[in-house]
C-alpha cells in the first residue's frame, strides 16, 4: 500500500482512488449464448434468443471466458476460486434484456492479487480485491431518434471481467499509471483486445478526499472512462470539485457521475431512486462454477512470461536500460521480435534502438498495421542481418535506413538467407561503405590536395576546417566512406 507523502496532497487533502475496470474478454461467442461478439455488426444481428431474453431461454456458460479469467488471476498473483457462484443483479434498464445481469456477487472467480508498476522512479503496488465474470449490457442510441432511443442488443451478453481494486491510489497520475499497466496485462496475456474506442476496456474511478489521518470521505464514482487522457482530466476535476464543496461547507453525497470531455467537467447522473437495491441472489439457472487445480496448473504452464518479468530479464540478460526494457515489453509481439533479433545478431542495444526507433516510426506512419503483421513483412532475421552489416562496418547507419525501407517492401523469402537478401539490397543500391584503407588514403590525399586552404586553416588551429575536410572526403566518396575511418585516416594524414 502506497504511503501518503506530503507532495501528493491537493490543497491539503489526501486523495483516495479505487478503480473498477470492465475488460471485454476476447472470446468468439458470448458468455452465455453462441452469438458472435464481433464488433460493428448491424443492430441486433448478433443478438440471439438467449441474448434477447425471449421467454424460455436459458444461459449456458462459455469455457473460453472461464479460461481467460484463470489467466488473469494467475497474471496478477491472485487466488483462483475452486467454487464460484453466479448471481443475478436485478434492475430495470432498456439495454438489460432480462431485467437482471448475470454477474458474481458473494463468491467471485478470482480473489485478491496485485498490479505493480512504476510511477516515475517509484514502484507502486495496487491490491486487487477481486475479479469476476459477468455479462455486458446492450447499447442505447440517441441520435437519429427524437424523444426516443434505439436499443441495440448486439453487445448484450459479451463476457466481461470486472476487476476491482482496493482504494490504494493516492493521485490521478497513479490511477492512470495503474490503468495503463492493467491494460498492458490484459492485452499482453491475450484475454482482451484493449480497444478502448470500441469499449473493450472501461474504467470507473471511485474518488474521495480527506484530511490526512481522517476517516475515508464519501466517494463519487466516475463512470465509463475509456481514454487515459480523459481519465486524468476527469479525476483531477472531480478532486478539485470535491475539495471546493467541502471548503464551502457542503457534504459530499454519494453519486455516480459522468465526465463530459467537451466541458472537462464531471456531473452527477440523473439520480436513481432506491439507490441500488439489486436483490442479488444465486442464479438458479446456473450451478456453481468448479475450477479444478489441474486446470489452473495447465493454464499456468501455458502462460507466457509477464511483461514486468520479461523487462527485468532484458535488463539483466541484455544489459538494457530500464527505459528500453519497459518500452520493448509493451506487447508480446514487440518483445518477442526484439529478442529474436537480438539473439540472432548479438547486438541487443542496437536491436533495441531499431525496434524503438525506425520500426516504431514506420508503424506509426503506416497506421492499421499490427506488430505481428510487421513481423511478417520484416522477419526478425532480416533486421538481425541488417544490424550485423552495420556493426561489421559494411554499411553506415544512414545507409542502413535506406536498406530498411527496402526491407519493408518484401520479406525476401526467395533468398537463401537473410544475409543474402540484405546484401543484395546493399549491392543493388551501391550502399557499401568504403573500407579499403588504401583506397581511402588515396582519396584523402586527393582531397587534401584539392583543398589546400582548409588544410592550412586546420594547421592554423581552426577545428571547423577539419569538419569541412571530412565533408569533402564524404562527398568525394559519394557517401560510401566510413565516417569513423575517415576521421582516423584524415587525422593521420594531416599529422
Amino acid at each position, binding site marked *: 500500500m502506497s504511503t501518503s507523502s506530503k507532495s501528493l496532497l491537493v490543497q491539503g487533502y489526501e486523495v483516495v482512488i479505487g478503480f473498477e475496470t470492465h475488460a471485454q474478454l476476447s472470446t468468439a*461467442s458470448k458468455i452465455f449464448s453462441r452469438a458472435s461478439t464481433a464488433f460493428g455488426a448491424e443492430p441486433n444481428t448478433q443478438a440471439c434468443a438467449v441474448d434477447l431474453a425471449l421467454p424460455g431461454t436459458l444461459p449456458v456458460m462459455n469455457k473460453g471466458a472461464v479460461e481467460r479469467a484463470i489467466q488473469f488471476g494467475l497474471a496478477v498473483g491472485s487466488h483462483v476460486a475452486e467454487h464460484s457462484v453466479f448471481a443475478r443483479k436485478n434492475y430495470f434498464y*432498456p439495454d438489460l434484456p432480462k431485467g437482471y445481469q448475470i454477474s458474481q456477487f458473494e463468491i467471485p472467480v478470482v480473489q485478491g492479487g496485485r498490479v505493480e508498476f512504476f510511477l516515475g522512479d517509484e514502484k507502486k503496488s495496487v491490491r486487487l480485491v477481486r475479479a469476476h465474470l459477468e455479462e455486458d449490457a446492450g447499447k442505447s442510441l440517441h441520435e437519429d431518434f427524437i424523444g426516443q432511443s434505439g*436499443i441495440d442488443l448486439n453487445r448484450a451478453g459479451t463476457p466481461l471481467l470486472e476487476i476491482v481494486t482496493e482504494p490504494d491510489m493516492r493521485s490521478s497520475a497513479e490511477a492512470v499509471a495503474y490503468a495503463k499497466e492493467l491494460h498492458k496485462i490484459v492485452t499482453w496475456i491475450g484475454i482482451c483486445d484493449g480497444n478502448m474506442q470500441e469499449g473493450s476496456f472501461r474504467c470507473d474511478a471511485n474518488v474521495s478526499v480527506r484530511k490526512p489521518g481522517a476517516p475515508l470521505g464519501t466517494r463519487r464514482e466516475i463512470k465509463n472512462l475509456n481514454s487515459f487522457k480523459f481519465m486524468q482530466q476527469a479525476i483531477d476535476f472531480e478532486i478539485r470539485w470535491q475539495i471546493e464543496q467541502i471548503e464551502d461547507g457542503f457534504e459530499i453525497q454519494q453519486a455516480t457521475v459522468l465526465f463530459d470531455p467537451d466541458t472537462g467537467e464531471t456531473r452527477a447522473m440523473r439520480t436513481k431512486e432506491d439507490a441500488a437495491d439489486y436483490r442479488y441472489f444465486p442464479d438458479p439457472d446456473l450451478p456453481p462454477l*468448479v475450477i479444478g487445480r489441474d486446470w489452473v496448473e495447465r493454464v499456468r504452464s501455458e502462460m507466457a512470461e509477464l511483461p514486468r518479468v520479461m523487462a527485468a530479464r532484458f535488463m539483466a540478460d541484455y544489459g538494457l536500460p530500464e527505459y528500453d526494457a519497459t518500452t520493448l515489453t509493451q506487447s508480446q509481439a514487440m518483445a518477442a521480435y526484439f529478442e529474436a533479433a537480438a539473439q540472432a545478431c548479438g547486438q541487443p542495444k542496437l536491436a533495441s534502438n531499431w525496434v524503438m526507433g525506425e520500426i516504431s516510426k514506420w508503424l506509426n506512419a503506416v497506421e492499421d498495421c499490427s506488430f505481428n503483421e510487421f513481423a511478417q513483412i520484416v522477419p526478425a532475421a532480416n533486421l538481425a542481418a541488417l544490424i550485423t552489416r552495420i556493426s561489421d562496418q559494411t554499411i553506415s547507419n544512414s545507409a542502413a535506413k535506406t536498406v530498411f525501407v527496402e526491407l519493408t517492401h518484401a520479406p525476401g523469402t526467395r533468398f537463401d538467407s537473410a544475409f543474402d537478401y540484405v546484401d543484395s539490397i546493399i549491392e543493388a543500391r551501391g550502399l557499401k561503405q568504403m573500407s579499403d584503407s588504401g583506397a581511402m588514403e588515396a582519396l584523402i590525399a586527393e582531397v587534401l590536395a584539392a583543398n589546400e586552404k582548409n588544410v592550412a586553416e586546420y594547421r592554423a588551429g581552426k577545428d571547423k576546417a577539419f569538419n569541412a575536410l571530412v565533408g569533402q572526403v564524404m562527398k568525394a566518396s559519394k557517401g560510401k566512406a566510413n565516417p569513423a575511418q575517415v576521421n582516423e585516416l584524415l587525422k593521420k594524414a594531416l599529422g
Partner: protein
Amino acid sequence: MALNAQDIARIAKLARLELDAAHSDRMLHQLNGFFDIVEQMNAVDTAGVEPLAHPTAVMEQVALRLRDDAVSEPNQREANQRSAPAVERGLFLVPKVIE
C-alpha cells in the same frame, strides 16, 4: 414482520408495478396475511446448514457445464423481432433514455 404502506410503495417501485390506493391497500392486507404463515420459518434452527440452490445437489454435486467457445447462432433478427412492440432500422425503440 408486518409491512406498512411505505413498504408496499417501495417494493412496487422496485418491481415496476403501479398500484393505486385501493390495490395498494389490498396488496398490503394480502401480503401481511401471507407473512403470518412465513413467521414459523424463523423458529427453525438452520445453523451450519448450507442452502440448497439446486434440488438434486443433496445427492451429488452439480457443477456448471461449460461449452466450447464457438459461434453457432446465425442472424435471425426478423424472426426474433416478430413480436417486438416498436422496431425501426433493426433497433428496439423506447422512450428516450436519459442519463
